[in-house]
């Protein structure tokens, strides 16, 4: 199995209008990535915390596209791209605080 990788970003956004802007920003990111050269980025999920209003978890998934490069390395390369840095900067502007990042390798998936 090619081990996938997920970058999790815990964020807080207390302004619903800004949250809408954040979703639109990431929707646009997806559209841009679909037209860009292939890299490890697979897609994103934005989850709202039901117990804690205004808190969200953003999960960015990465996979293997080159047998010699791990998904985690693809994610690291992605982080270095100017467009990623710019999107992260615009994202931070919409949030109450800086995101808290955590990084995960996939160990099991129902589909596998």
């Amino acid at each position, binding site marked *: 199995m*090619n081990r*996938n990788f997920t970058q999790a970003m815990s964020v807080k956004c207390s302004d619903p209008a800004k949250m809408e802007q954040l979703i639109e920003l990431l929707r646009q990111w*997806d*559209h841009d*990535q*679909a*037209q860009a*050269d*292939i890299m*490890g*980025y*697979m*897609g994103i999920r934005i989850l709202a915390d039901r117990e804690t209003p205004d808190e969200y978890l953003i999960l960015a998934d990465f*996979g*293997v*596209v*080159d*047998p010699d490069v791990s998904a985690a390395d693809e994610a690291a390369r992605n982080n270095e791209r100017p467009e990623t840095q710019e999107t992260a900067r615009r994202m931070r502007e919409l949030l109450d605080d800086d995101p808290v990042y955590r990084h995960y390798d996939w160990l099991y998936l129902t589909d596998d």
Partner: protein
Amino acid sequence: MNGRVGNDIDEHDIEEVTLVARGIVAAVAPETGLTDVQAELLQAIAAALTGYHVDYLALEPLAPADLADVLAARDLAYRQRIVHHMVLGELVLRPIPVVVAHRVAKYAEALGVHDNFVRVARRYAQGAYGLAWMDLARSGFVEHVQNADGASPTAPKQSPIAPSDVNPELAAKWQAFAELPHDTLGFQVWDMYDSRGFEFPGAPGGPPVGLAQHDFVHVLADYGTNLRGEVEVFALIGRADPDPKGFAWLATLIGLFETGYITSSGFFDRDVRDPVIQAPGMHIRVADGIRRGKVIWQRCDMDLFDFEYHEHAARPVDEVREIVGVPPKSEAALAAGSAALDSFEGMSETQRRVMQQRRGGGG
């Protein structure tokens, strides 16, 4: 079949055909070797387009640089279509091994081909189905349907493949085809809709007017309207398109009806209950659709979505076939079960039921 044997096949050099086949096999074979489905399909396409039978399961691999040498004198469009055959060989796999998708990209790079469909296949291999669909939709038919719809491809539009707005005038125009003589293109396409219970463009639940263009091709090419017929018709339409991006149609239908990589295209929904490409004879039927599409491209040189079918609706079907340059089906495709438009074999269960209710028979 051995060499040019009719059916409007261009003359080919058996040595080149074999070398290209070796390159394609080397690009698309999983680590366990070429699958039977891959071999049958690629072999059938090579036979239909070149007249030569090459045993794809008995070929030595050819390296990317060597394939590039073989195709050095060929133009970019030719090399791009060779790459599309590689992609086709990938798309029938589920899953597509990352190593295969990566290898095909290397072959494309060696051939100097930068192709979006190579990228789509890599996204499938990666598991990025959402991005793949966005990529595929923008790489092909969205522009086709926008253009056929009369809109500027650059004009903002919510979804060109979403159902059209209700337009009674348009629906009436299609309904009026019923008054034409029975041998005309217009009557035949009306009969196809009416006998199967399809709603006309402009009627509630009718197809987008741009997409409905392909229904005229069902009549001209005499292909059925079940999933197998749809795959045949879009294999033909895609290859007839002077722009290699027409390959998007076949790539999409395989994703919908064979491997299930695509959930919904907006006009067709995923249906993988009965694999299409793996059905007996379908590799030959798809290959013949591609061959016929190539002949149409050589004779007509226009995207079949742009053809003014309505202007020719009152002409006999055979006359319009001449104008467009539609060659007959090959004997091999007929023997493989390529169903005629008006036969029960070319209809889905639902279509047959409606046909029996409305016409009291068929076939």
